[in-house]
């Protein structure tokens, strides 16, 4: 029995005052390691990307420091993404409901969430974000290693450099796009989402509205008949 008098499948995740534990401490800590390192990489990367943004490198301690730290922080980001993979990959498989979710994306954009097919712990958009960061992380690491030690690439293999500069920039751009949407959703669009990755919990109402399938998994069928 949980505080609401409901039979839960995972009552251990139900916490007082009508909240559910959504992210464990490990998940939250890793999320913020990934987030912090990604933001540093994005800012220093943008400084090297455009002369208009080179001042960012100066603000962050000088362009030489940025050039020195960027690869090392990149390694931290990659390790964090790998740990994220071990935490979440088995929950990120695309299911039939995800296709329905994509087909209904217009409702989601117009905030008509009641018309969306029931999402599990992660909706299709969150799954795509996860995989784009995982694949992107691998591509950025591979191309980034070439750029890190570019003087060690022999002249006869210079095509590796050419591929790497384009892959590194192109992948980073796509990931910045994903990141912008992710931050917008988490901070501005879905009230309660930002707190959940800090404190770990969401309200029952939040879970029921945005992740109905997951809500049922945790809470079980509600005895509050509507």
């Amino acid at each position: 029995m949980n505080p609401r008098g409901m039979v839960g499948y995972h009552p251990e995740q139900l916490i007082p005052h009508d909240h559910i534990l959504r992210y464990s401490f490990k998940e939250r800590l890793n999320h913020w390691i990934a987030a912090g390192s990604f933001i540093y990489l994005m800012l220093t990367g943008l400084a090297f990307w455009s002369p208009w943004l080179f001042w960012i490198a100066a603000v962050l301690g000088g362009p030489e420091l940025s050039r020195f730290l960027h690869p090392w922080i990149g390694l931290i980001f990659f390790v964090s993404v790998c740990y994220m993979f071990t935490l979440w990959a088995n929950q990120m498989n695309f299911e039939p409901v995800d296709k329905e979710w994509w087909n209904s994306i217009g409702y989601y954009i117009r905030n008509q969430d009641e018309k969306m097919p029931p999402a599990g712990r992660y909706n299709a958009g969150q799954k795509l974000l996860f995989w784009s960061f995982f694949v992107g992380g691998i591509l950025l690491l591979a191309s980034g290693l070439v750029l890190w030690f570019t003087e060690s690439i022999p002249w006869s293999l210079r095509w590796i450099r050419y591929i790497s500069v384009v892959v590194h920039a192109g992948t980073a751009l796509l990931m910045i796009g994903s990141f912008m949407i992710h931050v917008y959703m988490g901070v501005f669009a879905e009230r309660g989402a930002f707190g959940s990755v800090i404190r770990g919990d969401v309200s029952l109402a939040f879970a029921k509205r945005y992740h109905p399938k997951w809500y049922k998994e945790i809470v079980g069928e509600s005895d509050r008949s509507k």
Partner: protein
Amino acid sequence: MSQATLRVQKISGHSGTVPGRDTQREYTVCKLVDTTTCIGCKACEVACVEWNDMPFSPTAFDNTYQTMPETRWNYWNLILFNEHEREDGSLQWLMRKHQCMHCAEPGCLEACPADGAIVQYTNGIVDFQQANCIGCGYCITGCPFNIPKFNSVTKRMYKCSLCTDRVSEGLEPACIKSCPTGCLHFGSKDDMKELAEIRAKQLRDHYGYDKAGVYDPPGVGGTGVIYVLHDATQPELYGGLPSNPSIPLAVKFWKHPLKWIGNLAMVGGLIGLFVHYLKFGPKAREESDIASKEGQ
């Protein structure tokens, strides 16, 4: 390093106008290397190391007349050697003085992200400003001639400066001054082109080198170092001199279309998200609001 008398017409990683562009009547300077009269004595190599006060580095003997396999951060000028077997079976020793080509459209400068780390003076010299260099190595990727070299201690890039300090005082570069055979010439680009064509014609008309010609590749806008070759149709024989060099396609794509597509997408994305918030707002104003929607 930059000299007060030299003005700058191109700057790497720079947002804004360039102070010296079209502000000065100035000759484009040029080095002419006549490979047909080079004897591979290495006087120019030594002169370069001497004038630029560079620390010595060990040579690498590989059973040829070449001092080392590639130029180094402290060895900017190298005579590349190739024993070429001609169709009739006879041998020909090809010697080419290899150094920065001082391209009119420099790939290194195009690729460089650091403001002012690479400049091109109004006389056409492409010069690295190590004080501004961040050691990222993008210039290595941008260069079609394998010239910029990394110093792992200072974490900066180095290459031939065309003796900027000498040229700005009206002197010829150290390598030119040291050449004992007169195969090296220095002057305005126009004069050097004329001299090179005269020499190439002489080789064709009087020495039996039917394919003799001048190497001044248009793919990089022409170069500040031009060659007279016995066989201008096969520049690769001369230590891998590319026959039609240009800034790598990947670098052009990265620095032009991708940059503009990316910038538009990022700015457009920010505006799009902001407008979305103005139009639709948050999915629910407060958490209590979610609950009230539940109750509807």
